[in-house]
């Protein structure tokens, strides 16, 4: 439904067609630019327009809304009404929008996204009828008020109880903020646009620009985009699609889909999504359209894509597409595959895998036989790795016995700040209470320690004095010392390919212990000072070659390159080789 183009002094309508020129990123901001980019690839997005960075700068100069912006916003909303067949601020068939800040360069302190603007007490019945879900309509309104309070009024939102009246929510926010929320959605939109402009001058944004030498003359744009709903009928739904499998890297699209659902339903875990096959069952045409879109995005961005989408009454909309996060195994396979497919060159393939990902793939793990033993306790595995030692029940004891050279496992009911010193000394940490977000979990991960939490009252403190093996990934605690296994980088086909590439390009030779010549090699494992990365450069002065754990770390490689070592000795060799190549390229 392409009507007249939207143009104004302060507005740009986003309706790029295939092959057309993209709007200036500096003028419309990164978010609007991405929408236009998707459109230019011929992909469907919810209609949107951008208030330009020039409007922001004009606002900064005068401290008031630029002349004509308000009437242009009116025209912009009319334009969205024509494209959506909905009506802004009306009781029937209401049009809701998301308002986002978007500078050309992203920076902290900018206004967060405001969703569902346009919803009101008056049009709740229409939204309830449309979705057949009165609770959804109420919840959407509640979330809108909360976000409006936080991002536009800049106040903490009081806890709005689900069973309170609609008027009570609003009244409590207004009392708390000591200002009224306008009843007219158009005035709310004005306030939201002003809030985005004001966020350009938030303390954090100003400090960030100063620190990074970013010009004050850039300004931020505002993106206003139609909200689409995946929960309206059986021909609606929402999901995510990865252009390749993000766990193992297999070159096949992978995704999740949930019929009759909004994004929050998927994120909150309230409902378990189905596979993409369910979208195929609903509509083979949409399924094919989505897969084609993911392919185009991957090709255009030369990166695996993670695409968020919604189907509203049988129409597909792409909400967002970005580089997909992937598990270490997937990162390796995708880099190698994409090079072999001719999509990227060897240098790009090398840059897509980090040394940390390879270290994680090659880290020691329990052998299959060992892992089949019966655990003495189980919980939530929140930080992977395997640790073995004697169970102690206090941080002080952990620290004391570790100092004497013992391997200890710290097992407590919960952890508090004064336990951190004991955690640092331990080989693994286990607790009885708390979940994956508990302090013990956060600290355990930060220290790279195997950590299992929430094993249950008395489950682990009762193990004091026993020797156990903790599998922090699986969340299991086994009696005794179990057998562990180190994967070999030469046995995996993709790792071997990477190894060949970096081996040919590395400015630093990395030898395995059994390949090392019989000559003077500095063993950093024998030097306490090597634990401090800042002292590595000093230790390597005048040295020809070095070995030990510290030299294989990223800091160690940097120091080895700076000291011009002839070679280092390490195993596995891929992480240090990869680090050396990336450092010398970057």
């Amino acid at each position: 439904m392409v009507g007249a183009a939207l143009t104004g002094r302060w507005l740009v309508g986003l309706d790029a067609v295939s092959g057309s020129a993209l709007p200036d990123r500096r003028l419309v901001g990164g978010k609007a630019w991405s929408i236009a980019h998707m459109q230019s690839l011929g992909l469907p997005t919810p209609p949107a327009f951008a208030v330009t960075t020039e409007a922001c700068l004009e606002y900064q100069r005068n401290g008031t809304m630029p002349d004509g912006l308000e009437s242009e916003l009116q025209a912009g909303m009319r334009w969205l009404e024509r494209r959506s067949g909905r009506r802004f601020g009306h009781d029937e068939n209401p049009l809701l929008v998301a308002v986002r800040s978007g500078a050309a360069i992203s920076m902290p302190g900018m206004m967060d996204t405001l969703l569902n603007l346009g919803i009101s007490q008056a049009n709740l019945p229409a939204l309830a009828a449309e979705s057949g879900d009165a609770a959804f309509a109420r919840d959407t309104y509640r979330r809108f008020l909360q976000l409006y309070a936080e991002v536009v009024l800049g106040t903490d939102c009081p806890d709005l109880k689900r069973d309170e009246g609609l008027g009570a929510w609003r009244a409590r926010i207004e009392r708390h903020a000591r200002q009224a929320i306008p009843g007219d959605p158009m005035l709310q939109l004005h306030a939201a646009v002003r809030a985005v402009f004001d966020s350009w001058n938030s303390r954090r944004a100003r400090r960030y620009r100063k620190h990074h030498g970013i010009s004050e003359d850039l300004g931020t744009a505002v993106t206003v985009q139609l909200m689409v709903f995946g929960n309206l009928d059986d021909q609606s739904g929402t999901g995510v699609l990865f252009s390749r499998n993000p766990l193992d890297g297999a070159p096949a699209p992978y995704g999740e889909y949930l019929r009759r659902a909004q994004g929050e339903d998927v994120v909150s875990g309230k409902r378990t999504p189905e596979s993409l096959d369910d979208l195929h069952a609903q509509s083979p045409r949409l399924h094919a359209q989505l897969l084609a879109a993911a392919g185009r995005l991957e090709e255009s961005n030369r990166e695996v894509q993670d695409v968020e989408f919604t189907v509203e009454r049988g129409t597909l909309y792409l909400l967002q597409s970005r580089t997909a996060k992937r598990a270490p195994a997937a990162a390796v396979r995708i880099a190698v595959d994409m090079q072999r497919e001719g999509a990227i060159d060897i240098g790009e393939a090398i840059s897509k895998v980090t040394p940390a990902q390879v270290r994680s793939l090659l880290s020691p793990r329990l052998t299959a036989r060992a892992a089949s033993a019966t655990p003495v306790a189980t919980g939530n595995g929140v930080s992977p790795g395997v640790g073995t030692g004697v169970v102690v029940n206090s941080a002080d004891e952990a620290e004391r016995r570790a100092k004497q050279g013992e391997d200890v496992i710290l097992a407590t009911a919960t952890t508090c700040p004064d336990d951190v010193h004991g955690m640092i000394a331990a080989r693994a940490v286990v607790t009885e209470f708390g979940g994956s977000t508990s302090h013990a979990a956060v600290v355990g991960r930060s220290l790279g320690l195997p950590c299992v939490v929430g094993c249950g009252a008395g489950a682990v403190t009762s193990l004091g004095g026993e020797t156990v093996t903790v599998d922090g990934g699986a969340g299991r605690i086994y009696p005794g010392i179990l057998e562990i296994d180190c994967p070999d980088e030469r046995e995996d086909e993709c790792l071997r390919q990477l190894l060949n590439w970096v081996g040919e390009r590395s400015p630093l030779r990395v030898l395995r212990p059994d390949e090392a010549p019989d000559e003077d090699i500095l063993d950093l494992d024998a030097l306490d000072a090597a634990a401090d990365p800042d002292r590595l450069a000093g230790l390597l002065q005048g040295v020809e070659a070095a070995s030990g754990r510290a030299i294989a770390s990223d800091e160690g490689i940097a120091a080895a390159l700076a000291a011009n070592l002839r070679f280092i000795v390490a195993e596995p060799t891929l992480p240090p080789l990869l680090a050396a190549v990336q450092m010398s390229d970057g």
Partner: protein
Amino acid sequence: MREMHSVLHAFAIKKFASIDDAVALMGLDEAQVRALAAEAVAGGRLNEVDGRYMVTPTAQITLQGIYAKVYAQLRSDAGFREDYEAFERINDDLKQLMTDWQTLTIAGETVANDHSDPDYDERIISRLGSLHDRAERLLDRLARHEPRIGHYSRQLLTALEKAEDGDIRWVSDATISSYHTVWFELHEDLLRVTGLARRE
């Protein structure tokens, strides 16, 4: 609290802390902390090993009594309790944020965030900034009852700004005064003020 109690309190929050740590943690005067710590060691209230201090078990019990006395009025103040509950709500968000910082859910599986994607990290740090804005307003209110809380607020801002400037260790590294470290200490301090037990 009296100065001596503040010093004991500092070493109770941060065990094995140095004099410098205690000064930084509570915003106290260095010479005074040094003198009081020496006095407390002599009086059997602190143990010292290699310049690091910890509160003795008996002094821990004494401290609990002091909290009960000093904060008796505050503990029955409905406004303060409400603010504390608001802190617990932000605390839940903070913990979720820290978990999102450290781990990713990929296709239903949890994997470590190896920080190979600057965009992802930037989004989380941006969320941390928004959370900090909320927390700061709340901590300002709490600091009206107990000025020490204001010092945590400044330390949190310092950690946030270092993270925003690109040194991502300042988000959750447990070995430095990262955002999470300071928050964790602040939480412990508030639990001591309110006399409530840690939930997990």
